[in-house]
């Protein structure tokens, strides 16, 4: 651990009879959880302040008994004896102190939880059959774990507004809201756009958006994630799929250089939603809305599904397409350029560079995407893997030279990997001048329309591989869904092209690509896809060690 960790004093805390040590400043609930004792909670969120309002995390707490001269009374085991407080305390807002004791499952604690569960349910609409949260609802889960199992409530429930359109991406059902205030605190403390609040009083307390304002922050959908119940739902995901059918795939966001960690929720090869995945080195628990929602094109019916060779009847089979591409790429040695993409993985970029050298071409580059960041999770780099492209020598700054070469006719063969050439300063008319235009892509655009050989590739959600974010953290992508039609992983396309151009290269799996990549790249020495793990590895740290 770092030096700062040793400076924080460690305090002794007895959790359910066992003495443990935790750094000063730890919240009691965290000490319990780290000890393996789950404490149910609604309002507490590790990344937000503790308002202590749900009262679900009540535990029994005690302090060491003291002799008159303020020395702890020691028991037979030599450990301090604890004087238990008759009142339960909220573990979320209680900081640990030396000698503190906590009981997480005593009869009093269980009674408290039963009471809180009953209170939360009496005015809850219990519309679980049509609630999007069902299956990942804390109210459901804790009802099973800690609830009474039967209702004594025979009164009329409190009526509140339903289906409130409080923002462009969010619907609010106030009857489901349990007033935990997580969303309010998120908007105050993280999104810094304090538009949510409570109105009215007591059991009529109602979550709402400030009059005349809208919950339109680009981080608004994070409130849906942290809402422990179905009060806040995403318009995009609403009624789209029962969550228990979703398969979750750990991967990363590719919309900018931040590389926020995400989960893709998919079923039967269709992506239904994306949610943030906690990684304190990168994105905490949050992602921007526009990134989260930018996946529908993956499901698009327009996706390129079949390889095509100009002048031949479509669809062609892959071996034919690869052969045609290899033939065209070899045709104009010295007049061949390559445009790769900083949206490709390291493995793909590595193979792209190999292909360029197999073709004897030294003219290659990637398209930079500088953009206005938001100072939070949207970086000033619109590419997810600029660091990788730089590390692997693909970012050469020669894009203008390539464009000029295409325009003057100096370049006769152009290989474009996953980019729209017209974004790279090459006009559609200039593309027409090319002798050969070999293109990989996933959706039709001006470049694919003019391809002499079109090789349909995989989207980011359909492939494995690694990318390096702007801070130098290498992270893994994982396959959530498979590519449509005949579309293939880019690395396989590139491997086959290299083989067709220059003979066998002994690569059969993505692991082998990474192995060769790591062997040839000092910054990645010693790494494997397995070692990178779910949270990635800081390459600068690896280097200095």
């Amino acid at each position, binding site marked *: 651990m770092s030096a700062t960790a040793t400076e924080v004093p460690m305090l002794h805390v007895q959790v359910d009879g066992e003495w443990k040590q935790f750094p000063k400043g730890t919240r009691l609930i965290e000490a319990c959880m780290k000890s393996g004792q789950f404490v149910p909670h609604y309002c507490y969120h590790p990344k937000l302040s503790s308002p202590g309002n749900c*009262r679900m995390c009540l535990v029994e707490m005690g302090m060491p008994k003291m002799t008159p001269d303020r020395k702890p009374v020691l028991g037979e085991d030599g450990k301090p004896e604890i004087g238990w407080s008759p009142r339960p305390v909220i573990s979320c807002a209680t900081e640990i102190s030396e000698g503190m004791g906590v009981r997480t499952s005593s009869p009093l604690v269980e009674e408290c939880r039963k009471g809180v569960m009953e*209170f939360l349910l009496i*005015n809850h609409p219990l519309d679980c059959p049509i609630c999007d949260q069902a299956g990942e609802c804390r109210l459901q889960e804790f009802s099973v774990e800690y609830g009474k199992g039967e209702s004594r409530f025979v009164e009329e429930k409190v009526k509140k507004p339903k289906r409130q359109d409080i923002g462009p991406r969010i619907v609010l059902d106030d009857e489901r809201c349990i*007033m935990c205030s997580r969303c309010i605190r998120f908007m105050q403390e993280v999104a810094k756009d304090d538009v949510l*609040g409570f109105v009215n*009083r007591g059991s009529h307390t109602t979550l709402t958006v400030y009059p005349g304002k809208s919950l339109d922050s680009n981080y608004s959908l994070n409130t849906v994630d942290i809402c422990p119940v179905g009060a806040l739902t995403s318009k995009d995901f609403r009624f789209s799929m029962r969550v228990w059918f979703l398969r979750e795939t750990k991967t990363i966001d590719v919309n900018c250089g931040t590389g926020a960690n995400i989960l893709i929720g998919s079923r039967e090869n269709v992506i239904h939603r994306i949610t943030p995945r906690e990684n304190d080195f990168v994105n905490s628990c949050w992602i921007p809305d526009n990134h989260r929602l930018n996946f529908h094109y993956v499901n698009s019916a327009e996706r390129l599904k079949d390889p095509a060779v100009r002048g031949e009847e479509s669809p062609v089979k892959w071996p034919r397409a690869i052969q045609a591409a290899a033939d065209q790429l070899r045709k104009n040695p010295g007049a061949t350029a390559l445009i790769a993409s900083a949206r490709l993985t390291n493995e793909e970029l590595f193979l792209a560079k190999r292909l360029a050298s197999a073709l004897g071409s030294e003219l290659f580059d990637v398209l930079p995407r500088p953009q206005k960041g938001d100072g939070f999770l949207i970086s000033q780099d619109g590419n997810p893997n600029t660091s990788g492209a730089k590390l692997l020598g693909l970012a050469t700054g020669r894009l203008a030279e390539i464009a000029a070469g295409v325009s003057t006719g100096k370049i006769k063969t152009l290989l474009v990997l996953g980019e729209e050439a017209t974004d790279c300063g090459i006009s559609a008319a200039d593309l027409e001048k090319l002798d050969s235009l070999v293109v990989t892509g996933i959706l039709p655009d001006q470049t694919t329309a003019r391809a002499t050989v079109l090789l349909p590739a995989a989207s980011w959600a359909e492939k494995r591989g690694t990318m390096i974010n702007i801070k130098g953290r290498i992270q893994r992508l994982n396959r959530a869904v498979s590519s449509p039609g005949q579309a293939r992983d880019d690395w396989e396309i590139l491997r086959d092209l290299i083989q067709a151009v220059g003979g066998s290269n002994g690569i059969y799996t993505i692991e082998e690509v990474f192995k060769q990549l790591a062997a040839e790249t000092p910054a990645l020495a010693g790494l494997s896809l397995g070692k990178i793990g779910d949270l990635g590895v800081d390459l600068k740290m690896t280097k200095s060690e």
Partner: protein
Amino acid sequence: MTAQPFVMPPPHPKERRIIFENISQPGYDPSIDTFIKHGGYESLKKALTMKPVEIIDAVKASNLRGRGGAGFPCGVKWSFIKHDDGKPHYIVVNGDESEPGTFKDRYILHYDPHQLIEGLVISAYATNTHLSYIYIRCEFPEAAGIVWNAIEEAKARGFVGKNILGSGFDCDIYVHQGAGAYICGEETSLLESLEGKRPYPRIKPPYFPAVLGLYMKPTIVNNVETICHVKHILRLGPEEYAKMGTPGDGGTRTMCVSGDVVKPGFYELPAGAVTLGELIFDICGGLKPGRKLKAVIPGGSSAKVLRAEEIFKVKVKGADGQMVDKEIKMLDVVMDAATLGSVGSMIGSAGVIVMDDTREMVWALNNLNQFYAHESCGQCTPCREGSLWMSKITTRMLDGGGQGADPKTLQNVADNIAGRTVCAFGEACAWPTQSFLAKFPEEFEAVAAEK
């Protein structure tokens, strides 16, 4: 702005009017001239010659307890503030008098505002505070005007503002009006309200006002009557003042008696000077003709109810200093903090609500339950949901829909609130239900059994 003329009846022989001495005088008005004519601001002059710590010691020695309801020793509260910690300090006067059955502060605010201002400036001097707020509930708009006016008058005479009476001590006072919520009487929610936020009580720990109070600075929150007493402690001397009360509960207490007595009203009595029986029958003229006493809530609506024929077994200190068992009848309960605590209730805000034999206890509890359900701030689960649930149950019982399980459910709901909430409102709303059920079980069972 002047309030309607108010004439206090002559004092009962047992009364000792200190706080209400001025207001008792015929023709007394809230102007500064009248106040000065009655010896006003003399205590302040004296205070400014003292060291702040001497004033705190005097308040400690006086055994003054907070008059807002919790009854915390005032001098101890003040001594939590470190005089020279380099931080701004605040005193906030809690004028959000809203406990049902309590109606004393409103008369001070309306009729003798300078008494409060004098007490406040002394308190500020003692605690090295240069900015104070008087928080007045929304329902006293006239009082807010009167107090503002009095502050302006006091400023003009050099009792408030810069360099008070040439002492070099500065203290500004502002009036802040609430927006109409009982919860604002809870000191931390009052501070939130004062900061312009929704008045949700703060969690304690860590937000004890003396440490992290207004704007997260050390803050004293005292009731209107409490602050007024400070002036009199200096005037009479702490020993003389303490002598009026009982050990640990010094000075006078203003008892507000409401309900089924012949002469309801407020009576300023030395703490512990009278029993409940003396208060009701001697001072308040007893019950209306032909009525019998049924129940008393002794300390504001949240205090646990006492039943007329109840006999309490308590432990008291005997002549030899040993604790001995003693039985006291309800009417013999002495009206001080210790005795009321020992019989399972509290002196609270000293709002005594008297109920005679015409009162149905389910009805009385429902009245309180409706109040608490309406006033629960809604921040934390047990109080938010429980207070309305209890109210719905008692309302249904009154409407003829009683069910056999109702008393048990009521009891259990109350038990699930008390002790599990952010603030003392949890107890405040649970105690009536718990105590009414315990003291009058037969009435609840009878109504629950009705079909």
